[in-house]
Every structure is written in C-alpha cells, then in structure tokens.
C-alpha cells in the first residue's frame, strides 16, 4: 500500500469523528431541550433555560390531558388512521406486486410502467379534486378518505415487487399449485408469510408517514373530536399561545414527538435497512 495514503488515515479519522459528533449534537440538542422544558413549570420557563430537568413533568402531562385540547383522542385518531393505512397499504401493495410478479397477462408491462409513472404525482396537486369529491360523497369529516387511498401506493408496490424478484421463487408457487391450493390461498398462506420482512419495513414507513401527515387530514377533518395530532399542533401554533402555560405547550410537543422516537429506537435496524431498498437500484 502507498505510504502517503496510509499516513493520512489518522487525521482523516479524527476529522470524521469530530464532524460526526457535531452532527449528532445538532440532531439531538432540540429533543434534549424539549425534554428539559417539558419538566419545567411555566414560571421556571420564563426565567430562562437550565440544563438540568425540573420536577414538573407529571404535572405538565396531567395539565395537558385535562386541558381544552383532546390530545388523547387526537392520538387515538392518529393511531387508528395510521395503523389501518399501514395494514391496508402493505397487504394490497403486496397483492398488486404479486399480480405483476407471478402472472403473465396482456398489458402487464404497460400496467407496470404506468404504476411507475404515477409514482411521482404529489398528493397536493390532486387535493382540490380530492376534497371536492369527498364532499360530494359525504366523506368529509370521515377517516375513510385518509385510510382507503393507501391501498393504491405505487412506492410500496415497487418495493414489494423488487423484494419478490429476489425472494419469492416461482418453484414454490408451482409446488403449492400441484398440491391443489387455490390462488387466493397461495397468496394468503404462502406469499404473505414469505413477504413478512418487506411488509414490516413498509408497514413502519406507511405508519410514520400517515402519523405525521398534516396537509390532507387538515382539509378533510373539521370535527374537534376527529382531528389528528398534527392538526392539533397546528392549532396550538395558531392560537394565542403567549397566554398559555408554556410547560403544557412543551408537553404537547413531547407527546407528539416522543412515541415515534421510542418506536424508532426499538426498530431502527429495520428502518435504516429499508431506506435504500426502495426507489434506487443498488
């Protein structure tokens, strides 16, 4: 090995660690300050920032749950929408991918190209027609327009298709057919279990995307008891927050952010592995 090349390893490694530590600091500091401030009383917060936690965490949480915003209902609404979206999206995307993967029929290639082509259409550009149609169908203020559309998810479909190409051998399906299993049974009891790792990854992504979604739910939901967490956060920003108990404001942000952080820390291995396998050819 070239000597000059070898000599630069030490300083380069040091530079890498320094940059990584700085970036780690900038990624985490906000959540640290958020946590500290959630544990402070309103009067302590007015006084300035202290680096050590106070003892107001449970009091702030108690006040939040007994405040005017139905945050627990909001969390439940967010959870129902996100969980059902994740289940429907992964199941039906797998089904769509299986149709393209396992069968050959007229127009298959055209359909595949078409699904890829619509992948990039942002939901915002169809929002106008979407909310007007939902109004006509009397589905405004319902969870249905926020859950059912996840069945047609081109990105999840594409991920599932790629996963099948390398993990679902055709011989297995053949064997099941010879054993006399019907096509729906093959799909439900052989394909779905084999696709579990891919379903888990995409389920997490769909859940998080739905959980964080603000634009469309904000246009669909207007009943106070049906609103999701992001809408409640936006309303908190829109209200005269200066008169608020700041401890409660921080508690609400914590309430919206920390569940995702905790789930992420448990599942991070799968999530990071799943980022790349999507749109890009490796």
């Amino acid at each position, binding site marked *: 090995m*070239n000597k000059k090349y070898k000599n630069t390893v030490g300083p*380069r*490694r040091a530079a*890498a660690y320094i*940059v*990584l530590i700085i*970036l*780690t600091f900038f*990624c985490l500091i*906000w959540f640290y*300050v958020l946590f500290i401030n959630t544990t402070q009383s309103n009067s302590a917060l*007015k006084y*300035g920032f202290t680096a050590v936690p106070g003892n107001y965490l449970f009091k702030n949480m108690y006040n939040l749950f007994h405040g005017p915003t139905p945050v627990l209902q909001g969390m439940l609404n967010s959870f129902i929408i996100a969980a059902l979206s994740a289940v429907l999206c992964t199941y039906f995307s797998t089904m*769509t991918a299986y*149709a*393209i993967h*396992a*069968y*050959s*029929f007229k127009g*298959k290639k055209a*359909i595949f190209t078409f699904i890829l*082509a*619509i992948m*990039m259409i*942002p939901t*915002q*550009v*169809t929002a*106008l*027609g979407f*909310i*007007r*149609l939902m109004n006509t169908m009397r589905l405004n203020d319902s969870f249905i*327009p926020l859950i*059912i*559309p996840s*069945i*047609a998810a081109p990105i999840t479909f594409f991920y599932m298709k790629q996963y099948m190409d390398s993990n679902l051998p055709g011989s297995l399906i053949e064997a099941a*057919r010879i054993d006399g299993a*019907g*096509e729906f049974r093959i799909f439900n009891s052989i394909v779905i279990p084999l696709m579990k790792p891919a379903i888990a990854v995409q389920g997490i992504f769909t859940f998080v995307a739905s959980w*964080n979604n*603000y*634009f469309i739910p904000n246009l669909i939901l207007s009943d106070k008891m049906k609103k999701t*967490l*992001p809408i409640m*956060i*936006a309303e908190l*920003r*829109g209200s005269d927050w200066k008169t608020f108990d*700041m401890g409660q404001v921080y508690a609400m942000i914590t309430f919206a*952010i920390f569940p*995702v*952080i905790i789930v992420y820390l448990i599942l991070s291995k799968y999530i*990071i592995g799943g*980022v790349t396998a999507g749109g*890009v*050819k*490796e």
Partner: protein
Amino acid sequence: MAGSTGSKAASGRDKIKSYNKYGYLFLIPFAVVFVIFQLIPLVQTIYYSFFENYRSGLKMIGPNFIGLENYKTLFQSGDFLIYFKNTMIMWVLGFVPQILVSLLLAAWFTDVSLRLKGQRFFKTVIYLPNLIMASAFSMLFFTLFGDIGPINSILVSLGLISGPYKFMSHVWSVRGLVALMNFLMWFGNTTILLMAGMMGIDKSLFEAAEVDGATSGQIFRKVTLPLLKPIFIYVLITSLIGGLQMFDVPQILTNGSGDPNRTSMTLVMYLNKHLFSKNYGMAGALSVILLIITGILSLIVFRATMKDED
C-alpha cells in the same frame, strides 16, 4: 377457485391461462382505489382550473368557463413567481449543505481503511429527524427560537448578543430556520442513499487506484463521484420534487402567513390558502402548474435511472 385447481384432464396450457386471469383479479383493488381517489380527483382538478369558481362573502361565484384566465391571473399578479422563488431559495439553502455533508459522511462510512466505530449509532442518530412529525418539529423550533425562548436565553447568557434576537421577524432568519429544519430532516436519508450507491461500486476499482498511488481525495473525485452520477441525479431530482411540495415546516413556523411580508410563503402554502378560502379556479390552475413541473422533473429521473438499467 374451482377452475384453478383444475381437472387432471385439462391440458397444461389451459391451466396456465386460467391461472393468469388471477393477475387481473389481484390488480382490481389497486385499480379501483386509484381511479376513485387519484384519477378522478386529478381530472377534476385540471377541469376546475378552466373555470371561474370562488367564494365571495357567503356566495359561491361560478363555475363559469373562462379558459386560461386563471393561469393568466396567476402569472400576471406576480404571486406565483414570488412564491416559486421563496420555495426554491429555502430548498437550495437546505439542499446544498445536505448534499455536501451527505457525500462526506457516505464517503467516510464506506471507507474501509478508516474503520469508523459506532457507525450504527451515528446512522441511527442522523436518520432520526426524518421520522419526526414535521409540524411538531417546527412548532418546537418556533418555541425554542421565540423571543423569550431558550435559544435566546442561552445566547444572551453566553454574552453573544445583548438582547433577544427576533428570529421570526427577519427574512433570512425565518428562511434559514426552514432550511435548517429541512437539512436536519433529510441529510441522514441522503447519506444512506449515497452509501448504498457507493457500496455498489466495484471494490477492485478502488484497489487499482490505490496501487497507482492515488490519494483518498483523488479516488473520491475521480472514481467515486463519476460512478455515483445516476444516484446523484435521483437524489437531486427527488429532493427538488419534495422541495416543491414544501409545506408543513414553513406553514407551522409562520402560522400560515409566510411572514415576514410573505417572504417564506411556499407554493403549496399558497395552494392551501386557496383551498381553504374556496378559491377553486385559482387552486386548480396552481395545481396544474405544479403537476407539469413535477412531471418534467420525474421524466428526468426516469430517463436517468432507465439508462442505468441498460
């Protein structure tokens, strides 16, 4: 289902044919949902863009067909160009540091000779902000950077500034905060994508360059970067498409106003405004223009990645 189990007498060919009709059957859920929730809304959006249709007081005006009048108004009022410019400025401010930092990190993470420890920890940390609820994240920034918020209190107590800095009242501090949040939320994702691209490069190319006496900087510029071009284009264009959709962060940070003086108002915030005030004609025209821009950008991605396949 009876057909698929088939009688033994049926020839193999018929059997395959009867299996294949399930291909269409399995496509039905996707097709139905796509048509109802995406295709019809899309067609309707385009249709409305040619109509005068807005709310004036309690009365709805129209819909009356007015051709391209909405598009004319959109451009002549100058609003579209202002918001397009704002969106692009905030996107560039976030994207430039994002791509530079991500390239650096991806190069370090994939460099075997560096033997960096704690890679999993660092990757977990830098990806974390991507999953945070954008609206809650910007609400958090709004409180942290408020006039009496902790950032001002820290800066004052460190003696860096004499009095609190009004982050929300200055053009470049608001744009800077939006860019900072976008940077934090996306650089981890970009790093992981670029890493995948770098790991896909044939290792023997690096070894050959090393044997020829190339420094690590030379290897990075002359071997890694050119081979990374397709994935680089993918990251650039998808980020640009995402940037055009920028909404949650500036919307919550400025409470939908795009203040100071509409300098942080993005295109989708403008669209959202029209949707809420039931100004459907203008909302339609704006949507169609966004669709066209996105379509052109997507075509570039499609071309770039398809060339890669050949």
